[in-house]
């Protein structure tokens, strides 16, 4: 990728050769271009890479000292033009200023940590790696891409899904079933005997047939089925089932229920026709 491939990139003003006669129009243009340029860079490393390329050498042999000076000059110029640089550009400037001073001073054998040469080498490595990734990205995008140079079948044929149920039954199941039928008289699975239970379904069936005739308030107890009104469990079951059934009918809007006080008799009546929706 050459700088020309990057659309936003414009020539960075070369500060090393001062203009003999500054042309005010040209200078203003340069200022404007610089604003655009700063906007266009993806961070200081991107800007550094662009600056590095102006050295026109292999990135392996880049002069990091010169690069640091280029960057600092760039930042200086931006400041002079009162272009607000993002904080990370200034952090990078500080770091490069530090690196530059370390590179210029004779190495201090007492100093701990990485040498200035190590730091410079690492920066060069990073620039080279970023450059390599950009080239790789360009190569990748230039490949024979699907939908651009290579095409899949235009009419893919969908795979039809069929569901088949396989019934599991063995001879033993069959024999068990038959044995169960044949021995029903002698063998009955254990179950609760529910002789004294009046179900809500039964109560509902019963009440549905009767509510048409309940024009006025009538005591719930009067609706217990015959033979269930005596004392004991049968009465309790029938009362509970019938009460539950009236609640269901009230919910359906077919009857009204009332109870004057706690433990008072519950009574109900058919809901008057006019109030029905």
């Amino acid at each position, binding site marked *: 990728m050459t700088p020309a491939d990057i659309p936003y990139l414009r020539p960075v003003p070369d500060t090393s050769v001062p203009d003999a006669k500054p042309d005010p129009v040209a200078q203003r243009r340069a200022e404007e271009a610089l604003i655009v340029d700063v906007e266009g860079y993806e961070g200081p490393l991107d800007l550094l890479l662009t600056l590095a390329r102006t050295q026109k050498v292999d990135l392996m042999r880049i002069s990091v000292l010169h690069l640091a000076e280029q960057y600092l000059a760039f930042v200086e110029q931006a400041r002079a033009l009162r272009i607000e640089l993002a904080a990370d550009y200034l952090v990078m400037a500080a770091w490069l200023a530090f690196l530059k001073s370390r590179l210029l001073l004779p190495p201090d054998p007492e100093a701990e940590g990485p040498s200035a040469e190590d730091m410079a080498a690492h920066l060069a490595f990073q620039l080279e790696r970023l450059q390599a990734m950009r080239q790789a990205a360009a190569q990748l995008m*230039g*490949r*024979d891409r699907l939908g651009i*140079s290579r*095409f*899949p*079948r*235009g*009419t893919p*044929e*969908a*795979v*039809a*899904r*069929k*569901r*088949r*149920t*396989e*019934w*599991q*039954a*063995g*001879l*033993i*199941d*069959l*024999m*068990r*079933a*038959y*044995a*169960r*039928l*044949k*021995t*029903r008289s*002698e*063998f009955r699975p254990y179950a609760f005997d529910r002789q004294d239970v009046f179900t809500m379904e039964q109560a509902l069936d019963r009440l549905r047939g009767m509510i048409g005739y309940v024009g006025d308030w009538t005591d719930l107890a009067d609706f217990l089925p015959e033979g269930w009104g005596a004392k004991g469990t049968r009465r309790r079951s029938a009362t509970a089932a019938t009460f539950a059934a009236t609640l269901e009918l009230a919910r359906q809007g077919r009857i009204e229920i009332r109870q004057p006080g706690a433990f008072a008799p519950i009574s109900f009546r058919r809901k008057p026709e006019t109030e029905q929706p």
Partner: protein
Amino acid sequence: MTDPAPHSDALPSLAEQERMVEAILFASSRPVTVRDLAERLPAGCDPAEALAGLRRAYAGRGVVLERIGDGYAFRTAPDLSFLLQTETVEQRRLSRAAIETLAIIAYHQPVTRAEIEEIRGVAVSRGTLDQLIEMEWVRIGRRRMTPGRPATFVVTETFLDHFGLESARDLPGLAELRAAGLLESRPPVEGLRVPLALRDEDDDIAATPPPEDLFEDD
């Protein structure tokens, strides 16, 4: 993208024209007419001839060049359409009603619906019999020569196959059921290692030994 396309130069060879038609037909979402091909190929090409060549090249392959209306398209060879179906098999157990009804039909065939109901003691839903018929384990037999001429039900060859029986007469009788412990009032104790192979309820037919093995203690 590597070589520049040679379409501006000489007339492509017939083999090259075949390649071109092949690619166009492959990538198109609709059948392509000879006229469309002529428009898209370099000038001077003969799509009809290329199509004829392609058609020969694909004869007998897994994909064939077909004429569809005015156009041409590749289609899966009809005898391979089964490859484009995936079948998911779902294993399900028969309902108790179904297995009981099946057992009654197997033991009493030919049997009418009324008779099944009498033995089971409950009505047989239409769905249960329909299911057994759909599974091809049961079919409708002759009508009974009694008043109302009710239909009878019998088991099928598929049924015998599935249950590994030569005929319905091979079904174990009551005495054998009793010997197998199936007529006891209590169900057989789980996990008891009797050599009857009766302890596993989930045995499917593949694992079920032939009936005679079941009753080797007779």
